[in-house]
């Protein structure tokens, strides 16, 4: 039975899982989901994810939520196919730990810093709200400090965890794609190593599929 993924490709967290699925060439079924009608609050969905948010993965008897737990599970289950994005091969525990470190940094530093900016710019207007400029300005100050650490790190290694593409880099794709569609592209493009890293990771075949999946049907 194929994996079932409940989610919407335009959503950053669903796209994070899609990137992993594409990298590993996993057979799956994307279950159409309608946030507008409150499908995420329906009892049948809350039974799958009590937090009532997408994505959710179903793999036979196992139901998983939290996109970063889903990607970790998929990489462990399909470790024999595609690239070794978690460095699971024997003897690579230290590399695996570096992947773990930079996935935590994405989770605890990078995404929390980008979320307020992207929310105010992309999503507040859809809810009839005027973007809060103070939140955006404060967010940019914080985010710049995080990016300075990334610039320094990426001047020492090609990718975040080392000289190999890993889950840590992949987890950054969806939020950064939104950033590159915002007025604040220069935050990335003004930092040469971050820029080079972004160009590299976003041009992978699997990443290009994510870009396509995250492109709205109508303008």
């Amino acid at each position, binding site marked *: 039975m194929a994996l079932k993924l409940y989610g919407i490709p335009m959503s950053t967290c669903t796209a994070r899982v899609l990137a992993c699925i594409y990298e590993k060439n996993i057979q799956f079924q994307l279950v159409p989901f309608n946030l507008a009608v409150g499908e995420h609050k329906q009892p049948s969905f809350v039974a799958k994810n*009590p*937090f009532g948010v997408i994505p959710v993965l179903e793999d036979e*008897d*196992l139901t*998983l*939520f*939290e996109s*970063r*737990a889903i990607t*970790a*599970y998929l990489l*462990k*289950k399909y470790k024999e196919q595609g690239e070794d994005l978690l460095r699971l091969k024997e003897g690579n*525990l*230290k590399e*695996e*730990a*570096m992947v*773990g*470190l930079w*996935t*935590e*940094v994405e*989770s*605890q*530093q990078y995404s*929390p810093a980008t979320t307020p900016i992207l929310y105010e710019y992309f999503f507040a207007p859809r809810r009839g709200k005027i973007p809060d400029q103070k939140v955006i300005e404060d967010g940019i100050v914080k985010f710049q400090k*995080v990016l300075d*650490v990334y610039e*320094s*790190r990426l001047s020492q290694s090609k990718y975040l965890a080392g000289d190999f593409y890993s889950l840590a880099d992949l987890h950054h794709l969806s939020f950064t794609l939104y950033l590159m569609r915002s007025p604040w592209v220069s935050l990335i493009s003004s930092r040469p190593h971050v820029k080079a890293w972004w160009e590299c990771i976003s041009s992978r075949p699997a990443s290009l599929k994510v870009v396509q999946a995250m492109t709205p049907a109508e303008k």
Partner: protein
Amino acid sequence: MTAVEETTSLSGNLSKTPRASWILPALAYMSRTCLIEKEVEFKIIPIDILEGEQKSPEFLKLQPFGVAPVMQDGDYSLYESRAIMRYYSEKYKSQGTDLLGKTLEENGLAEQWLETEGQNYHPPIYNLILHLLFHPKLGLPVDDKIVKESEEKLEKVLDIYEERLSKSKYLAGEFFSLADLSHLPFTHYLVNDIGRAYLIRNRKHVSAWWDDITSRESWKKVLQL
């Protein structure tokens, strides 16, 4: 057993000084509890947060975000508490408590609830501790709006935990895992230091779970360090 050095914001000595006695070692407690569960020896190297030692060039080489804790294991160093815990749980898989689950599915569930802690539980509880414990001692204002919103958010998460723990003994299933462990430090402050024990005690299954995980030997040892 391997000796690991942990550079952190609290040592036995520092905790006796009035200025430093309230420094929160919460994230360091997380990794220390994990190491004790895995029967790994470690040594604590204190740094003085008040003197800004975490912003010194030497420390920033180890942790560029200037935040404790950092682990050093020979010439290898690692930061971010959950990454530290995952590494040692994997490295010492065959000794001590199995904190990652025995099967791929159990591991998936452990990761799901550890991510839940990091994404849903940690942000509001951190705000509560920051405003109700830290800010008064630092002479900073307490933002009542943030406190109210954080408590409301935390209550919603705890309602979900109550439902979950009515069906299984621990968050990931019938086994204690990193997901339960990661809740120990900040919930300890919630219950003991900011008068919010009722958030836990008003929920029967959460309360029983809390009593269970805080009765573990590893946690009792960490509180004595």
